[in-house]
C-alpha cells in the first residue's frame, strides 16, 4: 500500500492544493487578520464566485479564471456595501465581535439558501481546455486542473503582497490594523481605509471561487467545509501575514493530501478542523504571530 511514488505524488498534489488554499484564505487574512472583522461568511462569497464563473462559462463559454477576474469589481462593491452595513450596525456602537459574528452567520445562511433556491443542490462544473489534462514529470503526474489554480493563487498572493507593501493604500491598510488612532492623527480616515480593505478581501473571493470550480464541482453548502480551512490557515499563518498565509496553506494542503491518500478522503476535512482546534488551543498566535 505504501510506496515512495505514492508519497511523492501526494506531496506534489498537496503543494498544488496549498497554492489554491492560499487564494481562498487571502480574503479572510485581510478581513479577519488585519481588520478583526470575523467574516465567517467569506467562504460562501467564494461559492458565489464559483457560481458566477459557472454562469459565464455555461452561457458564453468564457474561461472561468477570466470570468473570476471580470467579477472582481462587482465583488468589491458588495464587500464595500457589507462593510458599510456592518460598520453602521456594530462597529460604530462598539459591539462588533459577537453580534457581528452572528450577523455574518446569518448572511452566510441567507446567501447559501438563496443559491439553493436559484440553482438547486446539484453539483455544477465548468469546462476549460486545461481541465482533464496532466503533465508527467518522471513518476509524478501534475494535473493541470490543480496546477492552474496553484499558479493563479501564487500570482494573487504576490500581487496582494506587493499591494500591501508598496502602495499608499496598502500601507494604510497595514497601518489601520496596527493603530487606527495613529492613522487618524496622520490625516487618513480609518473607516475609509477599512472599507477599501474589506472590499479587496471580498473581491479575492470572486477569483478564488473561479479556482474552486476548476478543481471540484461546486454545490451551495460547500462553503461550510471551507470555514475551517480558511480560519485554520489564517490563524496558523499569524493573522494577516500574507507570507504566513502562504506557508500555512501549503502545510494544510500537504497534510490533507497525505491524509486522503493514506487514510481515505473522509478524514481529510477533520484534519483541517483538527489542526485548527490544535492551533487555537496550543498557539493562538499562529506560526508567525505578531
Amino acid at each position, binding site marked *: 500500500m505504501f510506496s515512495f511514488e505514492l508519497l511523492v505524488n501526494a506531496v506534489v498534489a498537496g503543494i498544488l492544493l496549498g497554492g489554491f488554499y492560499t487564494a481562498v484564505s487571502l480574503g479572510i487574512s485581510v478581513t479577519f487578520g488585519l481588520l478583526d472583522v470575523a467574516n465567517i461568511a467569506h467562504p460562501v462569497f467564494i461559492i458565489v464566485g464559483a457560481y458566477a464563473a459557472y454562469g459565464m462559462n455555461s452561457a458564453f463559454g468564457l474561461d472561468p479564471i477570466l470570468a473570476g477576474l471580470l467579477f472582481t469589481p462587482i465583488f468589491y462593491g458588495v464587500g464595500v456595501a457589507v462593510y458599510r452595513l456592518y460598520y453602521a450596525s456594530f462597529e460604530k456602537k462598539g459591539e462588533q465581535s459577537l453580534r457581528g459574528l452572528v450577523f455574518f452567520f446569518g448572511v452566510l445562511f441567507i446567501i447559501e439558501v438563496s443559491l439553493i433556491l436559484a440553482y438547486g443542490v446539484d453539483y455544477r462544473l465548468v469546462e476549460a481546455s486545461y481541465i482533464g489534462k496532466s503533465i508527467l514529470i518522471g513518476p509524478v503526474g501534475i494535473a493541470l486542473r490543480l496546477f492552474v489554480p496553484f499558479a493563479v493563487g501564487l500570482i494573487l498572493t504576490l500581487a496582494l503582497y506587493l499591494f500591501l507593501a508598496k502602495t499608499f493604500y496598502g500601507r494604510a491598510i497595514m497601518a489601520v490594523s496596527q493603530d487606527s488612532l495613529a492613522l487618524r492623527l496622520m490625516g487618513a480616515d480609518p473607516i475609509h481605509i477599512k472599507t477599501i480593505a474589506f472590499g479587496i478581501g471580498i473581491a479575492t473571493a470572486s477569483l478564488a471561487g473561479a479556482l474552486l470550480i476548476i478543481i471540484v464541482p461546486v454545490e451551495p453548502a460547500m462553503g461550510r467545509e471551507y470555514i475551517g480551512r480558511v480560519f485554520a490557515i489564517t490563524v496558523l499563518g499569524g493573522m494577516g501575514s500574507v507570507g504566513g498565509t502562504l506557508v500555512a496553506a501549503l502545510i494544510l494542503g500537504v497534510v490533507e493530501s497525505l491524509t486522503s491518500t493514506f487514510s481515505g478522503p473522509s478524514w481529510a476535512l*477533520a484534519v483541517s478542523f483538527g489542526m*485548527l482546534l490544535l492551533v487555537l488551543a496550543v498557539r493562538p498566535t499562529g506560526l508567525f504571530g505578531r
Partner: protein
Amino acid sequence: MKTTVRLLTALAIIVLGFLLTVVLENRYYFFAAYVILQYIILATAWNILGGYSGYVNFGTPAFFALGAYTAIVLTLAGHASLPVLIVAGGLIAGLLGLGMGYLTLRLRGVFFSIATLALTVVLQTLVINWPYVGGAKGINIIRPPTPPFFNNYVEFLFVVMVGLAVGALTVAWWIEHSWIGRGLTAIRDDEEAAECSGVPTLRLKLFATTLSGFLMGVAGAPFPYYVTFVEPSSAFNLDYAVNSLAMPMIGGTMTWVGPLVGAVLLGAAQQAAMVTISSELNLLIVGVVLVAFVILAPDGIVGLVHRVVKRKRP
C-alpha cells in the same frame, strides 16, 4: 410557598400536554410540536452559555448529535429504556461541554466560536468513519412498543419533550435568579473585572458549558426514536447551530423567556413555511429574521416589549 406554586405550574403543563394527546386526533400536530419543543430546549441550553456569559457557541449540532448517537449506541448494545438514554445522552454531551469549558481558558470571543465549529466537524468525521453506528449511510432505529395510555409513540415522545422543555426552562429560571446567573452576567460584561471582584470565573464557565452541553444532549437523545432513521448529515446539521442561536437572539438573550418566545415564534413559522412553501425557504426566513434582529433590535422581542412598557409608565 412560591417554589411549590412553580412546581405545580410545571406539573400542570406536563399534564396538559398529556391531555392534549387524548383530545387531539391529528398526529401531525404532535410531529410539528416535537420539533418546536426540541428547539425550546436547544435555545434555552444555548442561552445559558451564550446569552448569560456571552460565549457564542456554534457547536450545538455536536452536542445534539452526541446525545442522539449515545442513544443509538445504547440501543444497539442493549435495549435501554428512554429515560436511561436521555440521562446518558445528556451526561456524555455534558462531558464534551466540560472539555469545551476548558477551551475558554485560552480562547475568547470569535476564536472560541470558531473552535466550537471545528469541534462539530471533527466529531461528525469521527461518526462518519464509525461503521457500528451506521457511518455515513445512517442507521435505522426501531421504536419500542408504545407505552400504555398513549395512542402512538410520537404522542408519547411529545409528552416527554414537554417535560424536558419545562425542566430546561426551570433550570434557566433558577440560574437567572441565583448568584450563578449574576456571576455569568459579570463574565459577559467584563471577564477581568469579574475575576478581580472575586467571581470564580473558571468554575462558573465550566458549569455553564457543562450544563448547556448536558441540555443539548438531552434534547438529542430522543431524536433517533422520533425520526427512526439517523444519518450524520441530519444529526450534525448546521441548521441546529443557526436556529439555537437565532431563537434566543430574536426572543431576547437576557431572560429565560427570550429563548422560549424565539423558539415558539421561529419554530412555528418554520413548520408552517415547511408545509406551505418549501424547506429551503423556511431557512431563508430564519436567516433574514436573524440578521434583521441583530441589526435593528439587539435585545430581541423581550427587549422591545420592555422598552414599550417603560415608555408607557414613565
